[in-house]
């Protein structure tokens, strides 16, 4: 069992071919995967785990999380039901006002919401403005194509506008909720609202270990980059690498799951999830609920007035 095997000679000498000063040779842009993971990991970590905004003392931050969950969910349903662009725009303005009242930088909030889904939605629904997809009254003729009239229809344009504003408003509402509430409070609120306890337990644990696995992924790629000496990684080896990383990651996840299980059992876990947190409703909460109900009634009312 002796560990005194001899060190190979080459390991003790400097490699002649390698320039120690990084002054010659061409720079290589990082491969697709590398950029992908480091970029994604950084953005993910920021989006998932930054609690800067939740720590501010704005309007939403001061609310009882249960009230916040229910009110914003209610507004989400109302938003889904609206059928007129002006009403949706009004709703959207409301989310901006809420963001401002919660000490969110508006530019940050708008960017966070619009990148990427609503922008993509815009691109995606563009073809639907054409009369070949959405039939109706052509308002912007684009000429003829093999004898057929081609143009943008009123119905198509309105539909595209509807979808984009609704998507943006919906995402704004969800972002307002998650960005103004620390994750632990959000979980506690869901639990207080009678979400199944096991769901909460699994959800909380999944989120907690997401952080760890995310770091494991980044480490794997850093280790890989450290060992990549020359040449771009081609797509095939890239795919093999992804498969191997994903496989190794599953190994990590499984080992960790076993350890966590033992740690839970050692402290008396027998399959029931319990919790300690308690919340208190205040005047501000009641006022917020009332305001949301009023906004919802107004939005639905105006929407119906404008016709269905």
């Amino acid at each position: 069992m002796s560990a005194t095997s001899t060190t190979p000679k080459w390991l003790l000498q400097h490699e002649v071919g390698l320039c120690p000063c990084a002054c010659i040779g061409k720079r290589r842009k990082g491969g697709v995967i590398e950029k992908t993971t480091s970029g994604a990991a950084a953005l993910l970590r920021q989006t998932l785990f930054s609690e800067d905004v939740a720590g501010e003392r704005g309007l939403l931050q001061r609310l009882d999380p249960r009230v916040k969950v229910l009110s914003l969910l209610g507004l989400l349903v109302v938003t889904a039901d609206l059928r007129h662009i002006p009403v949706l725009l009004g709703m959207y303005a409301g989310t901006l006002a809420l963001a401002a009242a919660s000490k969110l930088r508006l530019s940050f909030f708008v960017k966070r919401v619009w990148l990427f889904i609503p922008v993509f939605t815009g691109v995606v629904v563009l073809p639907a403005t054409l009369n070949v997809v959405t039939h109706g009254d052509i308002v912007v003729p684009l000429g003829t194509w093999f004898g057929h009239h081609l143009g943008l229809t009123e119905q198509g344009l309105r539909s595209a506008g509807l979808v984009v504003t609704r998507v943006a408003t919906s995402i704004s509402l969800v972002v307002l909720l998650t960005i103004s509430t620390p994750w632990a409070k959000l979980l506690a609120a869901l639990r207080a609202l009678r979400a199944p306890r096991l769901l909460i337990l699994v959800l909380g644990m999944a989120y907690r270990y997401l952080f760890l696995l995310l770091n494991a992924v980044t480490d794997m790629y850093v280790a890989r980059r450290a060992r990549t000496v020359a040449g771009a990684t081609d797509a095939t080896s890239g795919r093999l690498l992804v498969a191997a990383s994903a496989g190794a990651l599953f190994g990590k996840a499984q080992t960790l799951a076993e350890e966590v299980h033992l740690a839970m059992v050692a402290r008396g876990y027998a399959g029931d999830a319990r919790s300690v947190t308690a919340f208190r409703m205040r005047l501000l909460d009641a006022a917020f609920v009332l305001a949301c109900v009023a906004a919802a009634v107004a939005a639905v009312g105006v929407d119906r007035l404008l016709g269905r």
Partner: protein
Amino acid sequence: MHIPDGYLSPETCGVFGAAMVPVWTTAGRRVRKIVKNRYVPLVALGAAYSFLVMMFNVPIPDGTTAHAVGAVLIAVLLGPWAAVVAVSIALLIQALFFGDGGVLALGANTFNMAFVMPMVGYGVYRTLSRNVSLTSPRRPIAAGMGAYVGLNAAAFCSAVELGLQPALFHSANGTPLYSPFHLAQSIPAMAFAHLTVAGGVEFALTAGVVAYLQRANLPLLRINHRAVPDTDAELAPPNRPPWRWALVGLATLVVLTPVGLRAPGGAFGEDALSDLPLHKYHLDAVPTGLRHYAGFWHNALFNGYGFDNGSHPTIGYLVSALVGIAVIGAVVFAGFTVVRRVRRGHDVDDDFETAPT
């Protein structure tokens, strides 16, 4: 394929949400029964893993990347019911933090990706890997095929959900209130992209991981394959050829392929979107399915569905809708039948159990 809020009517969301309740209940009960309290960390880590798999971007030949859903991979590794729970939770986290897949649309998204996909995919996998040893090279292929078929089944479901919106929900003057594309457009667009690029990625990832685990960490594969012998030598002689059930998977493909082939547009619409600064972020938070529409309008012009002559294609899309619903039903039913059959035959190794420690 992640449908954001705003694309589906509240009614649609409600229907799918309601449909998922018994699925989740069953999944929770089944997983819990089999592994007792051990399942909480296992499923939690499975969910975290599934979330990250969706973030793994795989290089594809045209120089861009695509990501996989990984639901069939999880089903192969942990069992189909554990996959239902794990992928649902991963989708919930995505919906909450990224708007990638909506909160109201969670029912529809989980129906497609956390229920149809693992069930159909796992059924195909079990069928193709019957009487195959744990280390056989046929096993990763079977897993990859399962993933491919599962993904396409899920994409098909989401295409139907989206495609039904304009027919069911429009204003008096014909303005579509939600997703504006009809079945005749949404199905070929989705099918094309998923039969080619996304399906390929899903296949490669799933098969790759299974092959990797065969080489590097066999005990992990045993978690969900307890009674499967390690090598072909230990295998009992085959009693019945598995081809009957393989036909189900192939039939699905046969049904889907011509639909997909009629849509010649660039998959993922990368050309139209390439001027967006997405590559800077490299976060694939963009719903895969939605991207396909970007390059889609070429297709609608050329594909001869009768839209270019200005006539209202009611009949066209009603027929498509009927066909669509029939196929969706067939796919789900087939998946179930396969799983049930397989379960009856192999009661032990089908279930999700951890190795004793």
